[in-house]
């Protein structure tokens, strides 16, 4: 099963194992309908899922995790027989897992193999693997595909979720593609499809957004305002990037390829292990949150409820986060100012005294924008700014960010929706495995970008002549 982020793959799988209830429709398992969506009951009927976030107990060893999932006795078996149980499974399926360390200390690949072994130990006839290869090395992924193939040959059903096209062709019999919660391609033989047609089914045809297109924008590129030189961290590998005033640079990519660290570094939460970040030629201070305001960096966080808002507090209070003065105005006066900001940014709410928790996702995001973009920032770091928003709200948010760029700010937009990135970006990079691939420039090559995101760069020919030549010169 293929699909990009947020297409609904994980939700579908959770329904299948009873962790979520469907609103309507039925699920048949081995011919009989499932009537109660309870994880324990569904498991007992022979269906098992390997989730993206592992459900191993990190403090227990591999053997103990097996016992927890399927106890044989009220007493725990002794060490030897627990080891024997694991060894037998390891042997039978060729999935290597160490037994003497807590699961939390196993490598990601081992943890996943253990999850799989646990499902096989319960003799699951239907195996659901949710993006199992996203966290694996190439060799591990190939090995996993091989194992899945042999499990299917034994008569089991294996559903394999991925966004890597190659894996579909290497290991799968049939394919479905989900997009925006709908099946675009449903249960068709893999042989009937080629890479290009699956990639476009996954990404979708270009939709027409109502917000101002990159092409419709006047270009007044200023000097470099945000400049990263060989910035590294646990997941980033020597990133070089310049964003100039008036420019929007988009970062596309599958989640978890280093975007999280990029956000943490540029928002000042984390110090890079190497390299420097310059804002308007000055080295950016880290770990001093209020300094961000002084540098003129606006930050639209990926998790607005964790980093950007205080839900139980008033909207007016949320507008002061990071910039609250020593002596605050009277509540009435704060509300007057806040009310104007809410109107200007079209935040629909019960007024400045309402709690941030009462806002819908789109309005909550507009509140963040009202605060962050209100002070005429020179650099805007926007992380998944339209995530979870309905199309109208997403349009408004995008429009606001484009306005900042027109006003001369350097905007770095980390996103997931390609159409949106295509519409707003002057240049676009794909983030893959901690590195930036690109830049891509308009007209964007959907296929090449889709393939780069899927880790498939064989056909990728980036035309470097598109890269603005001033960029290198502008670096301090």
């Amino acid at each position, binding site marked *: 099963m293929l699909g990009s982020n947020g297409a609904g793959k994980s939700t579908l799988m959770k329904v299948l194992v009873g962790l979520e209830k469907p609103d309507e429709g039925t699920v048949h398992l081995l011919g009989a309908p499932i009537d109660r969506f309870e994880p324990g009951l569904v498991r007992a009927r022979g269906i098992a899922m390997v989730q993206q976030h592992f459900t191993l107990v990190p403090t227990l060893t591999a053997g103990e995790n097996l016992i927890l999932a399927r106890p044989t006795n009220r007493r725990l078996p002794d060490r030897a027989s627990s080891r024997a149980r694991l060894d037998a499974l390891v042997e039978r399926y060729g999935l290597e897992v160490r037994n003497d360390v807590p699961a939390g200390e196993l490598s990601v690949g081992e943890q996943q193999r253990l999850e799989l072994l646990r499902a096989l130990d319960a003799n699951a006839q239907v195996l659901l693997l949710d993006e199992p290869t996203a966290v694996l090395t190439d060799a591990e992924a190939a090995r996993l595909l091989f194992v899945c193939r042999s499990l299917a040959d034994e008569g089991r059903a294996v559903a394999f979720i991925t966004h890597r096209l190659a894996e579909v062709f290497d290991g799968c019999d049939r394919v479905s593609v989900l997009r925006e919660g709908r099946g675009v391609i449903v249960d068709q033989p893999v042989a009937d499809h080629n890479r290009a047609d699956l990639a476009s089914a996954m990404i979708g045809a270009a939709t027409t957004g109502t917000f101002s297109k990159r092409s419709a924008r006047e270009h007044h590129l200023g000097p470099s305002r945000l400049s990263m030189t060989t910035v590294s961290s646990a997941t980033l590998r020597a990133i070089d990037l310049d964003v100039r005033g008036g420019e929007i640079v988009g970062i596309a990519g599958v989640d978890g390829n280093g975007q999280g660290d990029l956000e943490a570094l540029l928002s000042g939460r984390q110090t890079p292990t190497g390299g420097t970040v310059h804002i308007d030629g000055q080295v950016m201070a880290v770990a001093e949150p209020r300094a961000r305001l002084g540098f003129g960096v606006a*930050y639209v966080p990926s998790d607005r409820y964790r*980093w950007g808002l205080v839900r139980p507090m008033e909207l007016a209070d949320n507008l002061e986060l990071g910039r609250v003065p020593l002596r605050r105005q009277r509540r009435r006066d704060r509300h007057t100012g806040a009310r104007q900001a809410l109107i200007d940014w079209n935040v629909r709410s019960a007024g400045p005294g*309402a709690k941030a928790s009462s806002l819908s996702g789109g309005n909550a995001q507009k509140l963040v924008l009202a605060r962050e973009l209100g002070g005429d920032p020179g650099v805007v770091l926007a992380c998944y700014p339209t995530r979870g928003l309905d199309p109208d709200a997403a349009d408004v948010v995008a429009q606001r960010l484009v306005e900042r760029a027109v006003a001369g700010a350097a905007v770095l937009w980390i996103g997931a929706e390609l159409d949106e990135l295509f519409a707003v970006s002057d240049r676009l990079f794909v983030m893959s495995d901690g590195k930036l691939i690109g830049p891509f420039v308009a007209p964007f090559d959907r296929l090449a970008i889709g393939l780069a995101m899927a880790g498939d760069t064989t056909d990728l020919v980036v035309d470097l002549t598109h890269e603005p030549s001033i960029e290198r010169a502008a670096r301090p």
Partner: protein
Amino acid sequence: MTSLDASPMTLDDDPLEESAPNGRPRNRHQRGQRAVTVSPSVIVPVASLVCALLVGAIVIVVDGANPFEVYRSVAAGVFIDNRGLSDTATAATPLILIALGYALAYRARVFTIGAEGQYLLGAIVSVGVVTADGVRDLPGPVLIALGVMAGALAGAAWGGITGVLWTRFGASIVISSLMLVYVAQALLQWSIRVPIRDPESFVPASRQLGNAQLGELPFLGTHLGFVVAVACGPVLAWLFARHRVGYRISVLGHNPSALDANEVASRRVVMMVVLAAGGLAGLAGFFEMSGVNGRLGSSASLGLGFTGIIVALLGRLHPIGVVAAGLAIAGLDIGFEVSARSHDLPSSLVGVIQALVVVFVVAGDALAARFIGEGE
């Protein structure tokens, strides 16, 4: 109050309310419900007080007394008796100061329970300072100013230890603050036996405070400490409503990640909170010595630091509510003191009722969250 613009700000804002993990709303309909119902932040404490008194009545019946009689004489002890009101004010003074400190801390979700120790340190050090050789003969106002400073600083230092242990070593403030209560109690016994002992005294005790003693204020019939404690209410209310410090305390209590990402490192605010709470408790220690006890004796640790928790929770962590709750809890103390004796009831009955209040507050909060959260 309106001029300070404090009370409307937080009456609806319950810092102890458990927000669902991951910051999701417990229920989307919560707001709509709140708009039409009376805020649980007023109902819960009042209902808790009523429930506690009802349970108390049952206990009194079991004890063979007439609850109406008992409660009538409690009320009479406070409102009719000559000194009832001024005694209540005096008894409320340390409770209010200590509970304001708890309110400050609990709003930040910094759970300390060690005000008793900070109170004792405040008492020991301030008494030590104002009765020291060469100091004790200074004029009263100077001594009182010295005592206030010494008490507050000592309490703050004792509270600050818990903050350091938390920020540096990750040691739970709940536990460390309580361990320090026992250490403070030992320190009290030693200090009145050795360094600040009154050489004339037969039992271990400090010297009389002499010039540092607080006289009874005209009209009020209580000492200066009461005025300070009550004044601290609006000051803190102002701090919460109109000052960056109060804002940061709220953000720390509700979303420490947002504080770290946008304002200031949260551990610095934690430190400030434990220092302030300790300072208020230490201040209470000095006022109690100079306004009531007159000297530091071995029975100075009466558990005010624990009753203060009841006051803070009953007052909904709102400074004005805390002042009101402090007066109510002290009123129960004063009223029961007489009533229990005349009805031959154990003096500790009032403690049971006070503790029941806080249990009902906790239960009421959980119920309110459930009821409002799940009722459509």
